[in-house]
């Protein structure tokens, strides 16, 4: 069901926090802080990962690109928190520099119908975009994410070229999305961001695939390993659709039990959001939440 999409692709500035790690030790250094393993991270590879605190709770979500002896990190937590946290963990003997790229680079996302047309219009053949890689096109890095029902194309580019590239994409059949439209679209796609994941256990918010319990220690690993050894997480994230907005917070729902609504987006009279519900309950059919007839659906875990 993709009736939430416009007939043409949408383009949004993700306002990501952009960091460049350089130096011969940067991959080993960053690997110590991520929940997944980048010890074999190769040039132009794409790797998505999570940073957690010592309690195993998400503090940031990052998309990485290896560029020779540098790593470009597009992360979602705002401010300097992640950069300062990383900086404080560089050992005296490590060759690592952490550089703020927020003013130099911008992260755009293109998604929805006919995205191929927009890229072809600027001279890029969509067939050149492989899985889990970044492709260099001019001064841009472009990556196709096929983890969801709807393709998501991430573009990193110099900030001083954003106007020109945006205009070219719009001329070739896409339109800009505001933040509210983007939140509506990504929630329908099932893309969980730091807005929902912050402070939560990754597996509870469909980020469990970003955890590698075989890589060794990382902040939060002890908690994740203990949860894993005691069986699957007790709860998971779902998407709901309703005709009216549902208040964020806890709700008792007949047939499910207690659910926690963690986001609620209203757009053009339609309401969609994410909720966390217990594992093992059937979510077939409509449920009443706050007197609102609500459809609850599983989302795809990347």
């Amino acid at each position, binding site marked *: 069901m993709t009736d939430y999409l416009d007939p043409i692709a949408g383009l949004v500035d993700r306002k990501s926090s952009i960091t460049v790690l350089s130096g011969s030790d940067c991959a080993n*250094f960053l690997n110590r802080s991520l929940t997944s393993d980048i010890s074999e991270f190769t040039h132009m590879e794409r790797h998505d990962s999570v940073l957690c605190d010592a309690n195993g709770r998400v503090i940031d979500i990052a998309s990485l690109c290896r560029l020779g002896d540098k790593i470009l990190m597009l992360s979602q937590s705002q401010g300097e928190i992640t950069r300062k946290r990383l900086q404080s963990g560089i050992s005296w003997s490590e060759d690592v520099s952490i550089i*703020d790229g927020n003013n130099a680079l911008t992260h755009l996302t293109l998604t929805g119908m006919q995205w191929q047309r927009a890229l072809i219009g600027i001279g890029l053949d969509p067939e050149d975009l492989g899985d889990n890689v970044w492709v260099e096109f001019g001064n841009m890095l472009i990556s196709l994410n096929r983890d969801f029902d709807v393709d998501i194309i991430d573009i990193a580019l110099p900030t001083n070229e954003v106007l020109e590239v945006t205009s070219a994409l719009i001329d070739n059949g896409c339109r800009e999305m505001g933040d509210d439209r983007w939140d509506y679209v990504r929630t329908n796609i099932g893309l969980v961001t730091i807005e929902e994941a912050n402070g939560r256990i990754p597996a509870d918010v469909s980020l469990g695939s970003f955890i590698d319990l075989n890589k060794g*220690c*990382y902040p939060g690993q002890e908690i994740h390993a203990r949860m894993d050894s005691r069986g699957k997480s007790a709860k998971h994230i779902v998407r709901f659709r309703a005709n009216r907005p549902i208040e964020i917070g806890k709700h008792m729902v007949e047939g499910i039990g207690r659910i926690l609504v963690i986001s609620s987006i209203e757009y053009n009279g339609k309401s969609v959001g994410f909720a966390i519900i217990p594992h093992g309950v059937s979510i077939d059919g409509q449920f009443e939440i706050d007197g609102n007839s609500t459809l609850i659906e599983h989302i795809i875990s990347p």
Partner: protein
Amino acid sequence: MGILGGEGFSLPVVSETEVVSVDIHFTESAKSALKESMNGDEDTHALVISAQSGGCSGFLYDMKIAQVENDDGFQKLDIGGITVLVHNKDSSLLSGINVDFKDTLMGGGFQITNPNADRACGCGQSFG
């Protein structure tokens, strides 16, 4: 030019670090194990104790015997005739630690207890 060749990048991030005067306590068993590990290289080598990101709790201890050519930025301690170096950036994390040595087959070796840590990992190598 490439994506990283343009303008607008900031200088490397510098985080302000609190520098304190380092005080480390070694138990007698830790001193004798350290002396044994130095293997007569006390005049040319030092024990460097540091903290780096990682581990289950956020930071990992690291101890290495090294020949440090340039000890700028390090604080130097004399532990029974052996030079122990702690970098200024790690001083607030490591000052006050107690270094012990347990001579057991399982879970033995140097052990650190850290009064600055809010939490420690089960393996004892990580703190936060």
